[in-house]
């Protein structure tokens, strides 16, 4: 067994094409999923038991089913309803559907974490619920949304690899193509994993910058005894 990156030399363009599609699909699903997620979160907050029940079922159903199953349900469900779309669009829709449940929970939690009085004072003065959300609630929760949304977007970007199973030519699909042509699994998957890893690191870093721009991060300093620290933390001491 030897590691020979040269076998990939003809296949880099294919892998990069796949990576580019992975990025495009992830961004499109992020936008679609977030819009849907905000809508679900807002419906969930409408008073009464029915909106909560309906949105609760939506969220729990999507969260408890493997994404690959959601993907196939959408893949076979759209033609079943007479809708025929290219595989890439089907995959993006399924990905957005899947992510929307998580985004909805993120948005809902952030809104609920804000003191009720903020929304109520806007309502009492005569703002409509949407105006109160836009002028008073949204600007205050924006920063709190960034870290969990980034986490979810990373998860979603990774889940997009499953789109390979409905022949969407994204990165994982291309890696299987290259693997079939070269029979060099080590090289292929090392390269592909590195590309995913790189995308993840870039997204995480971008989110950190975004968070800093949206507002200063309040770091919580926890001071502790050194002996206890030996057991209760995993941070390596530099000497």
């Amino acid at each position, binding site marked *: 067994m030897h590691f020979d990156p040269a076998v990939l030399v003809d296949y880099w363009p294919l892998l990069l094409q796949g990576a580019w599609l992975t990025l495009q699909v992830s961004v499109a699903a992020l936008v679609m999923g977030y819009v849907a997620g905000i809508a679900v979160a807002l419906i969930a907050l409408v008073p009464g038991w029915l909106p909560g029940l309906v949105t609760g079922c939506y969220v729990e159903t999507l969260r*408890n089913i493997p994404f690959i199953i959601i993907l196939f349900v959408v893949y076979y469900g759209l033609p079943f309803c007479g809708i025929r779309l290219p595989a890439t669009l089907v995959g993006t829709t399924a990905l957005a559907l899947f992510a929307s449940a998580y985004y909805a929970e993120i948005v809902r939690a952030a809104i609920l974490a804000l003191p009720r009085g903020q929304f109520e004072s806007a309502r009492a003065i005569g703002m409509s619920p949407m105006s109160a959300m836009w002028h008073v609630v949204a600007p205050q929760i924006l920063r709190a949304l960034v870290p969990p949304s980034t986490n979810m977007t990373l998860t979603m970007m990774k889940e997009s690899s499953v789109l390979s199973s409905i022949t969407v030519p994204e990165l994982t699909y291309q890696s299987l193509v290259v693997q079939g042509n070269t029979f060099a699994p080590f090289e292929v998957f090392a390269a592909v994993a590195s590309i995913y890893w790189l995308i993840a690191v870039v997204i995480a870093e971008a989110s950190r910058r975004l968070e800093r721009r949206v507002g200063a991060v309040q770091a919580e300093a926890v001071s502790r005894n050194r002996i206890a620290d030996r057991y209760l933390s995993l941070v390596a001491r530099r000497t």
Partner: protein
Amino acid sequence: MGFKLNYLLSILPRLIGAAAVNIRLAVIIMLFALALGTALTIVRSLKIVAVNACIAVVISFVRGTPLLIQIFIAYYVLPAVGLDLSPEVAGVSAIAFNSMVFVSESMRGGLATIDAGQIEASTALGLPPHAIWLKVVLPQLFRRIVPVLINEATIVVKGTALLSVITVVDVLRTAQQIASASYRPFETMIGSALVFLVINLVISLSGRVAESRFAAARV
């Protein structure tokens, strides 16, 4: 063509039968993930700089790459280095490895919530490190991360559906086999979605019961 509920009901028994495969694999994976995750946490606590640096890279790798790619690595790459594993074993190792990292990461989070005074007291009493781990830290830690472990269990169950891609005959692969014979893929997929939904809801609910038991026991 309309939705055939009768057809859906007729295939449910086969899908539920196949679910036994997913559940069995998920249990094995969780056991490995727990044991390895705990071991990894203890190794990290030794704070050997070089070791922890390597572990950090591995963790970043596992968190930064898709589970499906990790499964492919176990399935395609391990045989190339002489480890010829069956699809099931390859898949279980990949998901267990992935889950191990997340278990260890949540244990790290749990450690931060344990009262430092207890450790000082235990050290003052002269307890050796392994006793501090076994008698003081770990029992509290496990109790604290029960909700995380329950969540991890549902993620593992969902992960087992990916094993169909490497030819493990689980719920999804069974559904695909049924659908290719009946030409009713939509109903079949709805059926497998229901199977997973029920499994995971049962796990979440029993987790909530266990949590309230633990909460009661702590009072």
